[in-house]
C-alpha cells in the first residue's frame, strides 16, 4: 500500500482545516483502506476522525432523529429508537456487508461509500469516475451488475449502499461542517447523477466533514391513526454478504384497504439511491393489492435502460418492488413492521 501521512483530528474544526483534495478522512476505513490497497484512492494524508464527538443518536423536539456521523452501522441498526420508528433503516443496514464490516463502518462513511463497479476498482481499466475522460470499460464490458436507471454515456456504475436506499425512502438531511461554518443538504440532493462528471459523487467539499444525519420524522407521526408498515427486500446472488442485484425499500400508510402514503426507493439498479416518486404517486389512493403494486413497479422501471448483460434486472427489480409492497402491506395490517424474513 502506498505511503501517506497520518494524523488525528481533535475537533471538527481542525479536521476541516486538514481537508483538501489530497487528504482522506478515515472513520471505519472499510472503503478507504480497501481502495488505497487497490491504488484506486491515493491520499497523501489520512486524518483519523474517530476521536470527534459524533457518536450520539438524539431525538429532536420536532420528532426527527439526529444521528452522529460516527455511529457505526451495527449500533445504528440496533438502536432502540431506530428499531421502533425506522425499522426500514435497521433492516437495510443489517442487509448490508458483514458483521465485521458493520462493526467498523460508520453512518457518514456509508453515505460516502464508493461504487463496486469492477472497472472502477481496477486501475488497468478505463473509468471516467476514477480518471475523468478515460472512458468507460463497463458500457461494452461485463455489465451484469450495472445500472438500469440514472446512467449516462460516461458512467453506469451502481450506488452500492443499502442504508442509503432506506434513507431515500425515509427522507433525511445531512449536516456538513467546513471553514465557512455549518450547512445542511437534503439527502436526495447529496448524491448527484453521473452525467458527464461521474467523478463528482457527492455535494461535499474537500474541506467539509459530514457531522450528522437527521432522519425526517417517522411517517406515522403525520398520520398517527393510520396503519403503517415498511419492508426492505434485497435480492442478490447469495443469501447474505453480497451487494444487491435489486433492492426495494417501502414505507406505506393504510387507511382501511387504501394506501394513503407511499414511499418507494430502489437499490442495486441505479447510479444513486433511487427514489421512485412517480410510482409512489401512483400508489396513493389505490387499494393495497397486487394490481396496484404491479402498476407501481411498471412505472418505477419505465425509464430503465438495460445493457448487454443486465436486462434480467428489470424484471428482478419489478418483482422486488411488488414483494416489498406486499410485505409492507402485511406489516401494516399486522400493526407494525414486517420482521418476517423475505429472502430471495
Amino acid at each position, binding site marked *: 500500500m502506498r*505511503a*501517506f501521512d497520518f494524523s488525528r483530528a481533535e475537533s471538527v474544526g481542525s479536521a476541516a482545516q486538514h481537508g483538501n483534495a489530497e487528504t482522506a478522512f478515515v472513520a471505519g476505513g472499510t472503503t478507504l483502506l480497501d481502495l*488505497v490497497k487497490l491504488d*484506486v484512492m491515493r491520499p*497523501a494524508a489520512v486524518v*483519523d476522525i474517530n476521536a470527534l464527538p459524533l457518536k450520539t443518536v438524539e431525538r429532536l423536539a420536532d420528532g426527527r432523529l439526529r444521528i452522529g456521523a460516527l455511529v457505526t452501522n451495527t449500533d445504528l441498526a440496533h438502536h432502540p429508537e431506530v428499531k421502533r420508528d425506522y425499522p426500514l433503516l435497521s433492516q437495510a443496514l443489517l442487509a448490508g*456487508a*458483514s458483521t*465485521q464490516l458493520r462493526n467498523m463502518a460508520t453512518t457518514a462513511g456509508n453515505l460516502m461509500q464508493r461504487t463496486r463497479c469492477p472497472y472502477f476498482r481496477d486501475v488497468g481499466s478505463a473509468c471516467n469516475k476514477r480518471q475523468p475522460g478515460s472512458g468507460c470499460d463497463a458500457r461494452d464490458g461485463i455489465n451484469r451488475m450495472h445500472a438500469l436507471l440514472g446512467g449516462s454515456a460516461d458512467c453506469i456504475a451502481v450506488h452500492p449502499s443499502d442504508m442509503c436506499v432506506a434513507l431515500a425512502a425515509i427522507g433525511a438531511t445531512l449536516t456538513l461542517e467546513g471553514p465557512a461554518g455549518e450547512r445542511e443538504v437534503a439527502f436526495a440532493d447529496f448524491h448527484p447523477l453521473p452525467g458527464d462528471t461521474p467523478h463528482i459523487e457527492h455535494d461535499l467539499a474537500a474541506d467539509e466533514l459530514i457531522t450528522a444525519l437527521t432522519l425526517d420524522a417517522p411517517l406515522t407521526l403525520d398520520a398517527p391513526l393510520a396503519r403503517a408498515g415498511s419492508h426492505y427486500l434485497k435480492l442478490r446472488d447469495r*443469501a447474505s454478504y453480497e451487494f444487491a442485484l435489486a433492492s426495494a425499500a417501502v414505507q406505506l400508510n393504510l387507511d382501511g384497504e387504501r394506501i394513503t402514503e407511499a414511499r418507494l426507493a430502489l437499490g442495486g439498479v441505479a447510479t444513486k439511491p433511487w427514489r421512485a416518486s412517480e410510482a409512489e404517486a401512483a400508489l396513493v389512493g389505490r387499494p393495497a393489492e397486487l394490481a396496484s403494486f404491479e402498476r407501481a413497479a411498471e412505472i418505477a422501471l419505465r425509464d430503465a435502460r438495460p445493457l448487454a448483460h443486465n436486462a434480467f434486472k428489470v424484471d428482478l427489480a419489478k418483482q422486488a418492488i411488488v414483494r416489498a409492497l406486499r410485505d409492507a402491506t402485511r406489516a401494516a395490517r399486522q400493526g407494525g413492521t414486517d420482521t418476517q424474513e423475505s429472502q430471495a
Partner: protein
Amino acid sequence: MMDDSVHSPTRRGTPAPTLNVNFTLNQQPISLEVAPNAVLLDVLREQLGLGGTKKGCDHGQCGACTVHVDGQAMNACLRLAVMCEGQHVTTVEGLAREGELHPVQQSFLACDAFQCGYCTPGQMMSATALLNDARIGSDDAAVKEAMSGNICRCGAYKNILTAIQQARATLADDATRRAGEGTP
C-alpha cells in the same frame, strides 16, 4: 485524488517515519512503532509474530483476519494499526486462558468444524464475538447471518454452525454452574 499526474507517491523511496501506538493486545499492554500505513493484520503477523490471524483476501471479503477490537469482531486487514491507540485487541492467540482452550475452540475440535483450518481462527473470533452479543439472535438462522462474513472454501459451514451452538450450550452451563457456586 484520482488523477495519476497529480499523485506520484509523496515519499516513495524514502523510509516513512514511524508512529508510536499503545494498545492492549491479548490482555498485555504493548507499545510499538508502526508505519502510518501499516494495517493491524500485517503488524500482528509481521511485527509481532502472531501468525494465528490469517491473511486471506486482504480486502474485508473473507473474514480470515477477524480479531476483536474492544470486544467487537473486525477485519484486521482494513484497520490501520495506529487507529488502535488505547483499544483492546484480542487475537485467536488470546482465546485460551491459563492453558485451557476456550469453549469455542473445544467445540470446533469436537465438532470437526474445519478441514484445512486456514479460515478457522477468523471463524472462531466471529463465533466468540457473536456468543457475547445479546443483539444477535441465538437461532441457527441468526448465527448463519452473523457468520456470513467468514468464508470457508472447504465448506465446513455445517459443522461450524454445530460447533457454535454447542459452545453456546457449554457457556450457558458454565454460567449456571458459576451462579450456583455463588449461592450459599
